[in-house]
């Protein structure tokens, strides 16, 4: 049902956890199924230096969060904004049609985090100590 890459990310999630010095944060929830993804980035000179994620939901949501952070570290903010849902789906080795929403949620959270940073807004969620 799921690809080898997918299973690898489920077994060994990349960049999971809090990022204490994050300066771009977003948490998005799928209002229909309740899946939830929080992305945290440390951005310096418009480049993503570090990325972390936390996720609650079905396996595709966890894997999209994990894969997204892996894809983004080292990328510029502009490059990150160009990443599409289809590219994320391809990166995790494909998703069944009823699980596409997981990738959509991840891209939405990514764009929201960067847009908030660009607009100088404060993160929507306080960074817990």
């Amino acid at each position, binding site marked *: 049902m*799921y690809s080898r890459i997918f*299973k690898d990310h*489920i*077994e060994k*999630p990349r960049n*999971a*956890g*809090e990022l204490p010095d994050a300066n771009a944060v977003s*948490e998005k929830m799928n209002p*229909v*199924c*309740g*899946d*939830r*993804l*929080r992305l945290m980035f440390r951005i310096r000179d418009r480049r993503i230096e570090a990325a972390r*994620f*936390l*996720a*609650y*939901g*079905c*396996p595709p949501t*966890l894997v999209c*969060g994990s894969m997204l952070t892996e894809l983004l570290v080292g990328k510029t903010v502009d490059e990150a904004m160009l990443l599409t849902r289809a590219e994320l789906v391809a990166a995790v080795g494909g998703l069944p049609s*009823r*699980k596409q929403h997981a990738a959509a949620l991840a891209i939405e959270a990514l764009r929201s985090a960067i847009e908030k940073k660009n607009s100088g807004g404060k993160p929507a*969620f*306080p960074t*817990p100590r």
Partner: protein
Amino acid sequence: MAETRKVYLDHSATTPVDRRVVEAMLPYLTEKFGNASSVHSFGQEARAAVDRARREVAALIGARANEIVFVSGGTEANNLALRGITDASLTRKNLLNGSSKSKGHVITSCIEHSSVRGISEELEKHGWDITRLPVYEEGIVRIDDLRAALRPDTVLISVMLANNEIGTLQPIAEIGSLVREERKRGRQLWFHTDAVQAAGRVSLDTEALGCDLLSLSAHKLYAPKGTGALFVRRGVRLVSQNVGGHQEREKRAGTEGVPGIVAFGMAAKCAREEMAERSEHESELRDRFEAGVTERIEDIVFNGDRARRLPHLSNISFRFIEGEGLLISLDLQGVAVSTGSACSSGTLEPSPVIQALGRNDELSRGAIRFSFGKDNTVEDVDYVLEVLVRVVEKLRQLSPFNKLSTLTNAAEGLPSR
């Protein structure tokens, strides 16, 4: 940690076929291939085998052989029971083709198997009134609710013997005696129970239960998929849902699936002879498992009454994580379980059974069913505990609901530790 092993803890979904069952059925695929309706010796041989199996299945539930109707499985048995009885009541009232506001009333519970749920919805669309009894936190219907729900036009009560997700045992004998009393007063009321999960795991006696119809499935009893049975008490009239043949005393047309029926017979015999031993073994494993989970994992909720339930089943909600994530992670370590989580069932709503207990969405989505079988071992349990502790810890570290996130969660009214 120990090396990966394969542990199957999903015996409520299906069971492997017992070696003795395979051996019993094999000749009926090859040299004894006759059609049980044929008059020649090939046919007579098949007929005799079907009759022997019928006696074994009847013995498992304290019924007479001629009260057993072989069908394709639990879902078909439930269809035949609910549709057969409701159709028969219309025939009596001469309403089968007529149009009346309400055709009559059926009482069921809100935790029935999806087949009974689906049939009830279908009946509702066709003009039947359906009452679905609540089950409260313990996951058991109350006889007082049933008594209150009865109407002069109630023709059928269908309440499962044991629930498939949480294993809770329903007060079937009490319902049975209530129905008998009502019938003594001249009422045309019938009682069906879906015993698919209970058969072979607790002892069943149709006389003591007082049911008129009872559904069984072979593949929950270490026989192959594709065979089931409906017990229809002598004198209970139902309208066949399969027409075009005289098989099964006119109740289910179609050539008998002889190998599957023979297998079912052997599985029923083994289950009857070994039931006490199997139940004791399975409940020991289940209790060891639950004690281990309670000791080693925090923030869990057991679903369903823990005393009045099947011996082999445990349903636990793990807070802060979602069922399918847990299921897949366990599967990657060789452990097979099941979940009522919305994602895995292909719907958006989490398990109606867990929700019926009054659990919120988060607990419903984190519910996992562990169902033990006769061939599981203590080593299996210890391995699963080892894996489960690790996987739950890992997934909780990923969860934005974990204890580091108390602030956020409190702000949004979400669960926090």
